[in-house]
């Protein structure tokens, strides 16, 4: 077992914890008595241990470290063990070990999962993460089913478990307890909710099909609305006492459900709007715009909590609603930063929650054993979950396009995991009013362990055994997306023809509303222009291609496998991608069989050496700082590339490239446009001005004889363009320049539009000039 490397770390960390414990205990005691000012200073202290200054922060940091190390050691385990146990279960077990160590040292559990810490510091980021990465389309199209399960299912669970337990209590199965119906109902309500953290942790490793996943997952998020209401209502009822409950109170309870649920969601939406608006204007402070998401997300949680509304719903909807606008408005770097930071926080929190769930168990204070109560609770929780799911799904299937199969329903019932939220609610019970609090905590812990460990353990084998439809990792395919778009239109048309309002009517109406008003309000103008979904897919695919080519080149040692036409396109492509993180969207239709042509090897390699590497010799792969003026180097390289491409194309194919001088009307600071105009100017030697940036230092290089292949190509005009080259004619320089300033990022596309305008004017006035004048030596 490869535990060995991390064992020392793990033990060391826990040892550290034990060492600091007496310090903490002692220091805590001292701190309360003596303040620094009271200490009699008899000599000048060289070094003092000021434990009380750093105590809380130190312990917090230490525990985060320990949790992280626990996760590391869990990850190192034997892969066979890992394929059985879900990671959450292993983390709980490491929590047991740690708790044991602490308890052994301290004879009391000093580090418990305090509900306040859990609800305020550990839970929000996990929910924000799930909201931000929620697949919106899937979520909203299944929202009806999710709501049915979340609301009706949870109420059913709470009521059924509570009442059955009460019935069994009356029947004497639990012995003597100081408990009543209301308290049973309260207990039922806190145990009824499916926990999002546990569901994520287990389902993440299982990969069921997306509909099943979104049902369970959506339910676990949205049932918080119900849980909060039920918990608060029954808590109030318990305080009021049984006598004072009348119809008025019950109606207030029902009304409070709507208020809590909708109020929480509304707060989330308000904060989402705030975030989107903020990111619309953070163009100048890109470095901190990522932080706004986290701060505002957390604020939405706290605001809802303050108003006693559903905090989880608030954060969920905040993430769900803002993701689209925020991703469009922010710089790509910020988007990536948010993505990774969010994952770090969420994962870290999840780890800590599970570890602490384990640690908290090792505490003799809370353990009250009552066989009847515990076993019956377990039984009822399981049975009623199955019953609820099957019944509700049967009803829903009558209205669904594609019914949910029995197998999926089994997995759904089995996936009703309880987790830390239930424990948190149990631990925050008031023990003066609820005498059996410890029993409830014990039972909750046992239910949580059972569901997370045992059900988590058996989930994967169950899914495999039942042959549940899994989601296969599909690669992105443009044709599927194109067809999806077509389907939408076709279905919309069919609905119009048959004159009925169908699902598509709502989606269409919403899309139209959103397109005209909401995006105008919340998105940056530049981002609005490039929103087309199909195009972004296309862009993503191109980027993938580019990355593949570079990796391929590195593997083979050179770019020699590309044929000549494509070399230019590719080099231009790669160059621009190094220049800024976007690429012109030139499709690289390079077929495998053409890449293998060997006779261009030498030429391509040579070309590469001359142009790409030389220009870049001033900076390393990872460090892009250039000592020479960056602008100049870029510009000159582009100019060189451009002219080579020109001459090659014109020589080989007799295509007359565009030759128009564009004096851009505006003085545009955009660097790319300057390049563009420079390049255009170059094509017409008669109108050669020196107003562009011409680095005299570079001039001599331009006069050197062109690389051998160019002269070859010119001389050899009888060579017919290759099959591939012919096909790629559309990407001749004439059109290539239009792609130069094309940027698909959220940043400005003004240059693109400006470049476009003159180009379209020009093309009508093009006057062909003799290709023979185009040769490498014109520079």
């Amino acid at each position, binding site marked *: 077992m490869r535990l060995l490397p991390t064992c020392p770390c793990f033990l060391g960390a826990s040892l550290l914890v034990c060492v600091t414990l007496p310090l903490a205990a002692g220091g805590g005691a001292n701190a309360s008595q003596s303040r620094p000012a009271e200490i009699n200073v008899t000599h000048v202290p060289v070094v003092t241990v000021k434990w009380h200054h750093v105590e809380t922060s130190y312990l917090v940091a230490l525990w985060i470290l320990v949790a992280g190390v626990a996760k590391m050691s869990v990850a190192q385990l034997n892969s066979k063990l890992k394929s059985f146990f879900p990671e959450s279960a292993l983390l709980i077990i490491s929590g047991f070990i740690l708790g044991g160590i602490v308890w052994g040292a301290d004879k009391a559990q000093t580090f418990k999962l305090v509900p306040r810490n859990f609800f305020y510091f550990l839970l929000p980021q996990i929910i924000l993460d799930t909201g931000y990465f929620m697949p919106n389309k899937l979520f909203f199209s299944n929202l009806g089913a999710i709501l049915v399960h979340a609301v009706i299912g949870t109420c059913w669970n709470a009521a059924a478990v509570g009442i059955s337990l009460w019935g069994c209590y009356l029947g004497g199965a639990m012995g003597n307890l100081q408990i009543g119906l209301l308290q049973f109902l309260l207990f039922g309500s806190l145990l009824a909710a499916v926990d999002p953290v546990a569901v994520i942790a287990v389902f993440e490793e299982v990969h069921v099909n997306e509909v099943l996943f979104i049902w369970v997952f959506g339910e676990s998020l949205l049932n918080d609305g119900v849980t909060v209401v039920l918990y608060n209502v029954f808590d109030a009822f318990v305080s009021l006492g049984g006598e004072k409950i009348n119809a008025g109170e019950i109606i207030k309870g029902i009304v409070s459900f709507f208020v809590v649920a909708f109020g929480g969601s509304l707060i989330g939406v308000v904060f989402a709007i705030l975030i989107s608006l903020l990111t619309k204007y953070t163009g100048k402070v890109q470095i901190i715009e990522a932080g706004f998401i986290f701060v505002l997300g957390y604020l939405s949680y706290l605001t809802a909590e303050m108003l006693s509304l559903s905090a989880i719903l608030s954060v969920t909807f905040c993430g769900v609603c803002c993701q689209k606008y925020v991703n469009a408005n922010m710089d790509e770097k910020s988007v990536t930063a948010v993505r990774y930071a969010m994952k770090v926080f969420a994962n870290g929190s999840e780890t800590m929650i599970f570890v602490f769930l384990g640690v908290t168990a090792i505490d003799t204070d809370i353990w009250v054993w009552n066989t009847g109560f515990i076993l019956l609770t377990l039984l009822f929780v399981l049975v009623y979950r199955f019953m609820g799911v099957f019944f509700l799904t049967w009803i829903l299937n009558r*209205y669904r*396009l*594609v019914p949910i199969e029995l197998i999926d329903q089994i997995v759904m019932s089995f996936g009703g995991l309880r987790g830390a939220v239930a424990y948190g609610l149990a631990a925050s019970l008031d023990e003066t009013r609820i005498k059996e609090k410890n029993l409830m905590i014990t039972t909750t812990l046992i239910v949580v362990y059972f569901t997370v460990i045992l059900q988590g353990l058996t989930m994967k084998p169950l899914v495999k055994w039942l042959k549940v439809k899994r989601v*296969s990792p*599909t690669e992105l*395919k*443009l*044709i*599927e997306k*194109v*067809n*999806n*778009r*077509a*389907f939408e*239109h*076709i*279905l*919309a*048309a*069919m*609905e*119009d*023809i*048959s*004159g*009925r309002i*169908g*699902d*598509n009517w709502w989606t269409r109406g919403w899309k139209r509303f959103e397109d005209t008003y909401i995006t105008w309000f919340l998105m940056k103008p530049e981002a609005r*222009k*490039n*929103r*087309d979904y*199909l*195009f972004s897919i*296309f862009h993503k*695919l191109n980027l993938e291609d580019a990355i593949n080519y570079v990796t391929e080149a590195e593997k083979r040692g050179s770019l020699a496998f590309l044929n000549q036409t494509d070399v230019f396109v590719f080099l231009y492509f790669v160059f621009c991608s190094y220049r800024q993180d976007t690429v012109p*969207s*030139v*499709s690289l*239709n390079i077929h495998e069989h053409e890449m293998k042509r060997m006779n261009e090897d030498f030429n391509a390699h040579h070309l590469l050496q001359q142009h790409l590497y030389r220009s870049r010799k001033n900076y390393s792969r990872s460090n892009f700082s250039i000592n020479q003026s960056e602008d100049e180097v870029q510009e000159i390289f582009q100019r060189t590339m451009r002219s080579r491409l020109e001459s090659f194309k014109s020589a080989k194919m007799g295509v007359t490239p565009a030759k128009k001088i564009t004096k851009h009307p505006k003085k545009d600071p955009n660097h790319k446009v300057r390049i563009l105009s420079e390049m255009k100017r170059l094509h017409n030697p008669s109108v050669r001005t020196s107003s562009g940036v011409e680095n005299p230092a570079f001039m001599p290089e331009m006069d050197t004889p062109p690389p051998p292949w160019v002269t070859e190509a010119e001389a050899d005009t009888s060579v017919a363009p290759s099959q591939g080259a012919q096909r790629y004619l*559309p*990407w001749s320089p004439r*059109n290539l320049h*239009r*792609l130069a300033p094309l940027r698909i990022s959220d940043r400005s596309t003004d240059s693109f539009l400006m470049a*476009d305008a003159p180009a379209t004017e020009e093309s009508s006035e093009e006057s062909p000039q003799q290709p023979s004048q185009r040769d490498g030596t014109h520079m």
Partner: protein
Amino acid sequence: MGSTNSTLSKIPNAGDLMQETGFSPAHIVRLYDRYKALDKDKKGHLCPQDFGAIKELAMNPISDRIIGAFFSSGQEVLDFPSFVRILAHFRPVDKNRPKDPNSPEHINSRSNKLKFIFQLYDQDKDGKISRQELLQVLRTMLEKQVTEEQLESIADRTIQEADLDRDDAISFDEFRKSMEKVNIEHKMSIRFLR
């Protein structure tokens, strides 16, 4: 239900239609009412202008193709059975319906749904979607936001993904293969036509 039966008897060949398409009597009656409502001049049949009069349809980018699909093979006249047959393509797939091994596939089978879509793309009916045809479809769907080159790039890439025999066009088999992973039953069905 009594009114349904009486209206049903007015529709010629209602029984055969139901058998062929799988629509229930209530649906057939509803569709018949709609057919009559679309036929503003009471001609007894539909022509392309009647479809053009539908407001929302006019806003649809591929409306002309869809209308073309109804009026296949150059006819100018659409009778009720053909109307129903086309709409039957969009019925949700019902797994419980007994499949008679000798009868042809149901109209709303996955394969027939795909064929319908294929015919929408393939305007010249040569059994292949050529680059030009794909380009036209893309142009209508992506009208304002992309340039011509980008459209061409997208079209090229789309064909490249699906085209297995490298003839620069997509045949029906290639089309079907590329749509394997897509949930056609869900995406090509309208709920109220069940």
